[in-house]
């Protein structure tokens, strides 16, 4: 199915065009942060705290500095004072941001806290020297458990009483008492999710070069322009004297939306050392220090009428923001409460959000940072359905919003529109064959085999128009040869932004796709853009390309009309040529048009400027673009070992018309796999002393291809109120998956009377659930 074109006849949009990035990536010729080499390059490595909480009594680098090849050892006293301004553009300078010193100053607050920065001639020497830096610690009791941190006498940061990083209440919970008191069924449950990490294939990385008052940065980032802006402010170097170059980035998932403390250290140190400075995060550092997510819980209340009609929902949500969350965690936390009513017709609702500090690694964004709302709601719906004796699918069917009910305001004020929860729900169940599965399940149970089906539906605000994310620019240049380059901010971390820009530009100009290329990620030549985040890139690229291409189309048509002696209205652009409608022989190629535009300006029609280059900027036309999806998962649980085998996994999604179904499905698949990992095995865990226990891939268990079934896709296309109608799809897979998997396990174990309220559902945990439920009924 093809979507509406942006400014021209659709030819590529809607089709499964192969990715233009793939040739270099699949042949191993991509350029990632660690591939950057510079003459005289120096290497950075961090001395990190082995304690969850300790006072730093002294740091002695004498022995380290004596090691041949060591250039410098920096501590907080050397670097932290050089900061001019430290704030992220996404938040602005005026929010009540949480502390974020580059190096630990006086106190360490988690295991992995960077204490000193070693600079040496190579990485091996830097790591050797780091072992020689003598740090004298006075270990102190840590606050490891965020859930009890409010009662702790120990404070992670002295300025935050009760370890509360921030609280945002909605209407008081008591406002729902009346409707709950009168309801036939009221469910209260606490749902808990474990800490997880984004785990990009490529860790963080930054090479900085300070030369002649100019700073050049090669950064593994989702937002090259933000790296530039942030560095400019941090160091007091004017923005136009900073250049960030980002070619290929091996995954970000939110972890790379802004520079963190280690990157600040490299920026602050580079002017003090005699050469360019590189830091490449290794896997252990990434699992130790790049950030945690998803460690949170919610006290849920849901009221239902006798027939299962949802009357009210509320969630009292608390998350673990660790010691140094990045960026400010409190504001985004509100999204859990705002989205908690989900895709359902529910009249009353409220929420509260609390962010709690702990002596663990700081919270960072992770694909669908508010996804807990879906986990909590969808688990509770299944629990409620079982208690009411209603099939979980039927309970949802009675409450789910239909496309023809849009626009619809949820009870906490989210303005849903242009979406189709019921339609994806029915499509996903139909792909599965829900009734047939129930029969198969019954037959299996008769043989002592435990199959289950889990459903998860959600709605998702994408491509937000909030100030930082609300606009995107594109420059398009038809070169003198007629070849076309589109320049965009980029920030692709594997999410196919190059293919997207090339397809849309080819369509908008009537060019052959092989004539279009794109340059992204270099702030020296690309327009400002905030990078990837908030499932914004597809719709915003479409908008920006459309705005810019419309200027060039007009110019191409005017020059062609002059050359062909035709009326502009009779000229059309196709196959990198302009021709007169109905007269294919009357044609002029883009190369010929470009030749006129660049080299024979005097021959151009009156009023047409020389050259074929344009820049324009698209501003989002809606506060957000609403996407939605339903995930359905089936599984078999081995009740002896607790092993979960996923049988089928179905996603029916509505991200509007698809620019490229391959890319949409790839985004969904990646997110689903992360969600499966979160449901069943991933756990960024700490012991009770605050020691991390999952800093290698032996212990931080990611799902592999043998644990993931073939993912089946269904598509519903409800256009958004924006050019092309394209909506975002980057995060949804990760939002929907955990609840679908957990509900499938809960359904499989329903004969045992098991209630699932906590992830991960490891084999050990599943056996525990069965044992504590007391056996099959």
């Amino acid at each position, binding site marked *: 199915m093809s979507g509406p074109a942006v400014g021209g006849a659709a030819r590529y949009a809607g089709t499964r065009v192969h990715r233009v990035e793939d040739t270099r990536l699949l042949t191993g010729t991509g350029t990632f942060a660690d591939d950057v080499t510079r003459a005289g390059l120096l290497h950075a490595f961090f001395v990190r705290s082995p304690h969850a909480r300790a006072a730093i009594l002294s740091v002695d680098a004498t022995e380290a500095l004596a090691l041949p090849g060591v250039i410098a050892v920096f501590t907080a006293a050397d670097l932290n004072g050089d900061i001019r301004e430290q704030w992220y553009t996404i938040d602005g300078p005026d929010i009540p941001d949480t502390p974020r010193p580059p190096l630990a100053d006086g106190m360490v607050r988690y295991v992995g806290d960077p204490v000193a920065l070693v600079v040496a001639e190579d990485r091996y020497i830097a790591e*050797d020297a780091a*072992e020689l830096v003598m740090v004298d610690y006075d270990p102190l009791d840590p606050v490891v458990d965020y859930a009890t941190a409010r009662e702790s006498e120990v404070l992670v940061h002295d300025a935050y009483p009760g370890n509360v990083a921030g609280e945002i209440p909605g209407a008081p919970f008591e406002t729902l008492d009346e409707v709950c008191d009168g309801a036939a069924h009221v469910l209260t449950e606490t749902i808990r999710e474990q800490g997880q990490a984004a785990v990009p294939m490529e860790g963080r990385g930054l090479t900085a070069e300070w030369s002649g008052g100019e700073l050049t940065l090669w950064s593994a980032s989702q937002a090259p322009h933000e790296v530039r802006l942030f560095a400019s402010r941090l160091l007091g170097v004017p923005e136009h004297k900073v250049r960030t170059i980002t070619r290929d980035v091996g995954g970000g998932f939110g972890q790379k939306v802004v520079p963190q403390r280690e990157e600040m250290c490299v920026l602050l140190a580079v002017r003090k050392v005699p050469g360019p400075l590189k830091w490449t995060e290794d896997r252990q550092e990434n699992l130790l220090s790049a950030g945690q997510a998803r460690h949170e819980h919610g006290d849920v209340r849901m009221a239902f009428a006798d027939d299962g009609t949802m009357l009210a929902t509320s969630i009292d949500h608390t998350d673990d923001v660790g010691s140094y969350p990045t960026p400010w965690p409190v504001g985004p936390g509100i999204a859990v409460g705002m989205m908690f009513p989900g895709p359902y017709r529910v009249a009353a609702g409220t929420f509260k959000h609390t962010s709690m500090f702990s002596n663990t690694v700081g919270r960072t964004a992770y694909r669908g940072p508010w996804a807990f709302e879906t986990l909590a709601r969808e688990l509770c719906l299944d629990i409620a359905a079982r208690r009411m004796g209603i099939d979980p699918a039927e309970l949802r069917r009675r409450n789910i919003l239909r496309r023809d009910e849009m626009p619809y305001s949820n009870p906490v004020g989210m303005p849903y529109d242009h979406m189709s929860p019921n339609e994806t729900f029915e499509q996903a169940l139909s792909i599965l064959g829900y009734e047939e599965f129930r029969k198969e399940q019954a037959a299996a149970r008769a043989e002592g085999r435990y199959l289950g089906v889990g459903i998860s539906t959600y709605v998702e605000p994408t491509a937000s128009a909030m100030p930082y994310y609300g606009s995107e620019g594109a420059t398009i240049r038809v070169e003198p040869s007629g070849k076309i380059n589109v320049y965009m901010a980029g920030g692709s971390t594997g999410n196919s932004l190059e293919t997207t820009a090339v397809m849309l530009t080819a369509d908008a100009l009537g060019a052959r796709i092989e004539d279009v290329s794109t340059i992204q990620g270099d702030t020296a030549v690309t327009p400002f853009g905030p990078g990837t985040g908030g499932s914004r890139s597809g719709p915003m690229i479409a908008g920006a390309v459309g705005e810019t291409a419309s200027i060039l189309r007009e110019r191409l048509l005017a020059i062609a009309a002059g050359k062909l002696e035709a009326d502009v209205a009779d000229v059309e652009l196709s196959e990198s040529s302009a021709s007169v409608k109905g007269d294919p022989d009357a044609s002029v190629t883009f190369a010929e048009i470009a030749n006129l535009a660049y080299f024979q300006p005097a021959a151009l029609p009156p009023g047409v400027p020389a050259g074929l280059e344009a820049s324009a900027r698209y501003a989002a036309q809606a506060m957000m673009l609403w996407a939605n999806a339903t995930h359905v998962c089936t599984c078999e649980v081995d009740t002896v070992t607790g092993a979960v085998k996923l049988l089928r996994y179905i996603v029916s999604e509505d991200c509007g018309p698809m620019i490229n179904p391959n890319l949409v499905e790839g985004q969904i698949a990646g997110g689903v796999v992360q969600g499966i990992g979160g449901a069943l095995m991933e756990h960024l865990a700490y012991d009770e002393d605050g020691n991390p226990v999952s800093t290698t891939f032996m212990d931080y268990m990611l799902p592999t291809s043998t644990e993931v079934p073939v993912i089946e896709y269904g598509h519903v296309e409800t256009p958004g109120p924006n050019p092309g109608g394209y909506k975002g799809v980057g995060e949804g897979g990760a939002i929907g998956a955990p609840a679908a998997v957990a509900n499938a396990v809960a359904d499989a174990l329903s004969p045992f009377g098991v209630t699932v309220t906590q992830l991960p559902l490891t*084999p050990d945990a599943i056996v525990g659930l069965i044992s504590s439920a007391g056996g099959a009924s």
Partner: protein
Amino acid sequence: MKPTAFDYHAPASPEEAVSLLGSLGDGAKIIAGGQSLTPMLALRLAVFEHLVDIRRIESLRGVSRSNGTVRVGAGTTEAAVGRSDVVAADVPLLARATPFIGHLAIRNRGTIGGCVAHADAAAEYPAVALALDATIETLSPRGTRSIPAAEFFTGIWSTALEPDELITALEFGVWSGRTGFAVEEFAVRSGDFAIAGATVAVELSSSGSVDRCAIGLFGLGPTAVRATAAEESAAGTAVPDLNPDEIGQAALAGQDVPSDSHGSAAYRTRVGAAMVATAWRRAVKEASGE
């Protein structure tokens, strides 16, 4: 994740290798496939001044059969063990354990000698060696030794090897008659170290009673272990009189089962018993010719 500096040695013979070990002292370590040692070096969990790489020593590789035993050179890769017709025919338990070791890329480099020398409690080959009463042949500057598997694994990641001693081969007795062999392993993901695993070998008499049996456990103690009490209670009994689930329970009784983030001791014990029971059923079924 960069190792400390080390000197690299590539001896051409086992004798040269142990001579190096002898002269270099405690700071030297044999590296074969490097599938465990390399990450430990990178994480600086292990620090050695000298690595003695035995991968180029041809005489340490290969599988041969003579006089009722199968000899597997210590440098034989796990993948080569898995491909060996001799192993498949005469030491089926070894062949059947092999696919559970990591992934193919790991088996292409990892060696049987390295696996046994590393002695991870959750690894498969030590449990096979124990179950089959394999002999571990070694060489040191003082000459050769033959160490029974039962005396080889002494504790967590520790063995009877001296610092200057190199494993040269493993020798397995060939079981004949009405025999059956099975390996069962439970891991969360394909290729992971076992949460619990069992190797079972049985030989039945013509009348259908258990002539001899061996049960090796892995992931269920500080080292791979034999479940000798369970074996003894099964020996001599007619197969129909034996309850595999009870054999599983008996095999786990009294074991020093570890707890970690992947599973508590109670959980591992439960799964271990189930692995033994399933492996027992399969081995007996094979021995019975069914």
